């Protein structure tokens, strides 16, 4: 399983570009290092995504070095790209199971880009708790089936929240490891 879902690869690359322009190859390497684990990105996936970002004006080509081939291109994030990235990072994910992958990405990117990672986690926690409250209220009003369904969701949300808590507690250690 890949940590970063397809939808957010573009935003992830934007995040990796924020600290400074990079070659596509560097981008792939950085991505693999932080998020790839068992499933590194294909070059094709990188360049396809980058060209989509180029088309949307979120990145720009900073310089094309002599020679041919995609490796000669250096990409830089545009202001629009930064805005998009800000928006994404600041927006809580829809609380749902297994979203930790996205959150993790966000946290790492925040650390890499020097943004306050704890706030991302707190924002997420607030969103989670809000949903839990809604579910708890629904549970109180509903029948047993409703209660069981809600409890299932609640337990998963709680697991996420526990993870959030733990991650918050380990932010400093994570920052050291990521920025190294």
């Amino acid at each position, binding site marked *: 399983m890949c940590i970063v879902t397809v939808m957010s690869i573009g935003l992830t690359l934007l995040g990796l570009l924020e600290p400074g322009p990079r070659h596509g190859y560097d981008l792939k390497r950085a991505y693999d290092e932080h998020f790839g684990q068992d499933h590194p990105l294909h070059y094709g996936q990188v360049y396809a995504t980058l060209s989509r970002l180029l088309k949307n004006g979120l990145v720009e080509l900073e310089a094309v070095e002599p020679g041919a081939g995609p490796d000669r291109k250096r990409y830089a994030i545009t202001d629009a790209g930064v805005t998009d990235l800000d928006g994404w990072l600041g927006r809580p994910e829809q609380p749902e199971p297994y979203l930790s992958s996205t959150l993790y990405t966000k946290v790492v990117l925040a650390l890499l880009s020097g943004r306050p990672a704890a706030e991302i986690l707190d924002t997420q926690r607030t969103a989670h708790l809000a949903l839990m*409250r809604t579910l708890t209220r629904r549970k109180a009003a509903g029948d047993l089936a409703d209660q069981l369904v809600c409890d299932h969701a*609640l337990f998963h949300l709680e697991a996420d929240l526990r993870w959030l808590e733990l991650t918050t507690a380990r932010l400093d250690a994570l920052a050291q490891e990521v920025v190294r």
Partner: protein
Amino acid sequence: MTATPLLVGRDLHRTFGATPALAGASIAVRPAEIVAVMGPSGSGKSTLLHCLAGILRPDAGQVRYGEVDLSAAADATRSALRRTEFGFVFQFGQLVPELTCVENVALPLRLAGTRRRPAERTAREWLERLEAAEVAGKRPGEVSGGQGQRVAVARALVTEPRVVFADEPTGALDSYHGEQVMRLLTEAARRTGASVVLVTHEPRVAAYADREVIVRDGRTRDVELVG
């Protein structure tokens, strides 16, 4: 959501020996509001609760309950408030072991001056409301954790206090009994219009609250009401 806060703690500091437990915590509780105080162990949650309830005096900062400055009030004033306006639930019930359950529930009424018979009648009603009528005549040592905790909730609510302070009320219970206690506690609090300050580290328990306040390293975040 714009009612005047009933209970406000402002920039509270409290140190135990050399260990700072609170280092600038602020919180506001509105009437009939259930506020969860969350945070990791040792973050100062319980100390915050003790300061708000007038059990502890903060080293610095102010606790205001209505018109009363709790942080400056004499012990007698604070004790009287605790008898009449506040109720308490603790993690392990903390029922008085030698008294029967109904006597435990009646205790706050009796401390406030109600005679034994009417106090115990009211206590029985509360035990019924908390689905614990069957343990009325038993001693705390003879009842289960969930039952004991429901008795403790009944004891906290029996004086129909304005504020109930609950410190990890489900901490010693499994999920099922924890949920049951929380449901009964919040239902009863909403019915009597009591505010609840609920200290917990469990999100599922905190989800019974209207909102949460997070304490970290003795400081609170996200305090919307404190200006």
